[in-house]
């Protein structure tokens, strides 16, 4: 191969060939296929460049440091631009649904912890919400408050870690993630004191919560919550107007409101696209009507908006937490009438959903009157949010795809279940 053609191949691999199709490429002879390609190059029928064998198929994952677990994308690149991206799932398919159908209703709670392993408490809540709807059980007042408190703490934990990981994907190795995990440690300490476990809390039950919070715990939570805005300010000082972050995120991975709704995108992703839909407001569950908070909404639907929405949501969570910690009443935390052992809900079905940090988390249960659910289905937000990953990534470069994926906020435990 002559030197000249080598140079051209290199240039087109960098995407330079795209800009001027009539340029030096126009009058050069048709390139021979590369002798030994590093990756398998398969022509894609239809495109002219593809006929020259220039598209590049890259399998990103399942072991890749930027895919947040064992996620795989089959990417086809034309030069550096993505022309097709197919997500591949199932590398963490742990059969939650089958296992939970084989056990009693109570036995499913620890499994819900392991779905989205950052947010075990909201997972618990979504499940007990569905069971409570099915069986018509209610939780006492104090338990409802504890649920709100733990759920909002979970949201703080999830969003701060997510931002850390997103920045990690952008190449900010270490620092933001370290800050986020510093805060996470404070929050998991609270969880550990309340529930006995750092990550897998297994805390909520049909008709209440498993244990009561001590006065000391509430006090310590108050202190952590009061401190949290300081961390947010620090984080935002570091990031929000950071030039690199702006350059890498603004205008990248745009998602229109129509497509987002049609594709069932929920959570911060949806709100970043300008749809003010938060289940805490749209169909309030628990006692969320009692709290004053706002729903931040984005304008452009790009990665930057998604980052910003999460920052703002954390501030709103702090607001909810302050109110809840002030108002929490005394009383029991478990409804004495609710059975947990030998619990047989009536025949029927129920779908319970709530606003988990990643979007709408729903549980669909069918009861046939036996102690085991006949059908146990998890509607996982991060799985469905991935439906439009390809649409967001088309035309971008691979390194943008990594950031776009990061901004979707996925956890493989939930995606594959």
């Amino acid at each position, binding site marked *: 191969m002559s030197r000249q053609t080598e140079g051209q191949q290199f240039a087109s691999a960098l995407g330079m060939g795209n800009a001027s199709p009539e340029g030096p490429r126009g009058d050069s002879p048709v390139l021979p296929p590369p002798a030994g390609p590093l990756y398998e190059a398969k022509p894609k029928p239809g495109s002219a460049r593809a006929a020259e064998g220039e598209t590049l198929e890259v399998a990103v994952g399942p072991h890749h*440091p930027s895919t947040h677990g064992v996620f795989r994308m089959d990417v086809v690149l034309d030069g550096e631009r993505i022309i097709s991206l197919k997500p591949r799932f199932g590398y963490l*398919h742990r059969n939650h649904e089958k296992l939970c159908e084989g056990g009693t209703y109570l036995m499913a709670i620890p499994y819900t912890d392991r779905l989205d*392993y950052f947010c075990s408490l909201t997972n618990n809540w979504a499940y007990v919400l569905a069971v409570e709807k099915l069986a018509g059980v209610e939780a006492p007042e104090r338990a409802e408050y504890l649920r709100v408190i733990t759920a909002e703490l979970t949201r703080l934990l999830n969003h701060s870690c997510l931002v850390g990981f997103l920045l990690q994907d952008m190449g900010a190795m270490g620092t933001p993630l370290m800050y986020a995990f510093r805060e*996470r440690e404070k929050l998991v300490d609270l969880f550990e004191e309340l529930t006995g476990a750092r990550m*897998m809390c297994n805390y909520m039950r049909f008709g209440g919560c498993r244990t009561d919070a001590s006065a000391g715990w509430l006090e310590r939570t108050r202190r952590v919550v009061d401190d949290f805005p300081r961390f947010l300010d620090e984080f935002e000082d570091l990031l929000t107007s950071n030039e690199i972050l702006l350059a890498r995120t603004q205008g990248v991975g745009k998602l229109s409101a129509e497509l987002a709704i049609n594709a069932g995108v929920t959570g911060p992703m949806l709100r970043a696209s300008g749809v003010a839909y938060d289940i805490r407001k749209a169909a309030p569950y628990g006692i969320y009507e009692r709290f004053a908070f706002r729903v931040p909404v984005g304008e452009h639907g790009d990665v930057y908006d998604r980052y910003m929405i999460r920052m703002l949501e954390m501030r709103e969570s702090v607001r909810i937490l302050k109110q809840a910690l002030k108002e929490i009443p005394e009383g029991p935390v478990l409804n004495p009438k609710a059975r947990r052992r030998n619990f047989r809900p009536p025949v029927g079905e129920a779908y319970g959903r709530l606003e988990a940090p990643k979007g709408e988390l729903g549980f669909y249960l069918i009861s046939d009157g036996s102690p085991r659910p006949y059908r146990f289905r998890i509607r996982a937000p991060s799985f469905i949010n991935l439906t439009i990953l390809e649409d967001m990534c088309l035309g971008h470069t691979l390194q943008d795809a990594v950031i776009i994926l990061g901004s979707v906020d996925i956890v493989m435990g939930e995606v594959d279940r």
Partner: protein
Amino acid sequence: MVEEGLRNELSRQNIFLTSIQELYNWGRRNSLWPLNFGLACCAIEMIAASMARFDIARFGAEVFRPSPRQADLMIVAGTVTKKMAPMVVRLYNQMPEPKYVIAMGACAISGGPFKRGYNVLKGIDRYIPVDVYIPGCPPRPEALLHGLITLQRKIAGERLTGPERPRHLRELEPSEYPIPAYGPYDLDPPKNTELWHPKPFVRDA
């Protein structure tokens, strides 16, 4: 070998006595480079262990490498599904010798809470040899550190010669293991029978 007392005495005189074996093991055990490889929930605690509070750098293992070619410790942190198992074995095969494996968490050891799942591998030791098992679901970061120290002790005790020498110094031991293929109902083969010898288990009546 020089006895311990004499050695201490000499070191006070700025004379440092050691053997090649000790020096070699000392160097290796304090610079274990783990593969940056997370599978499930346990990986989050592994990341937590590498962050400021638990600071795995105190034990020389903070250099998480994204490429298996640069790593010598594989921490299998999380559930290995049947769909993922061939990749895990392939990554193991790609690591250069000497290499070690820590199975972190109930799932990597035996399938853990998901043991009865149809797509869950019941323990990674069915396909690759495991050096240290860390029980827990998830193990706390302290437990991971303890597992790491256990592995370091194990490396410190390795002999370079003689019949006791570790796997990677024996010519006949393989350093790569067969990668299972996807079958119509299960992995093919479902376990590496040359490697995996479960103890015969007799239940009490």
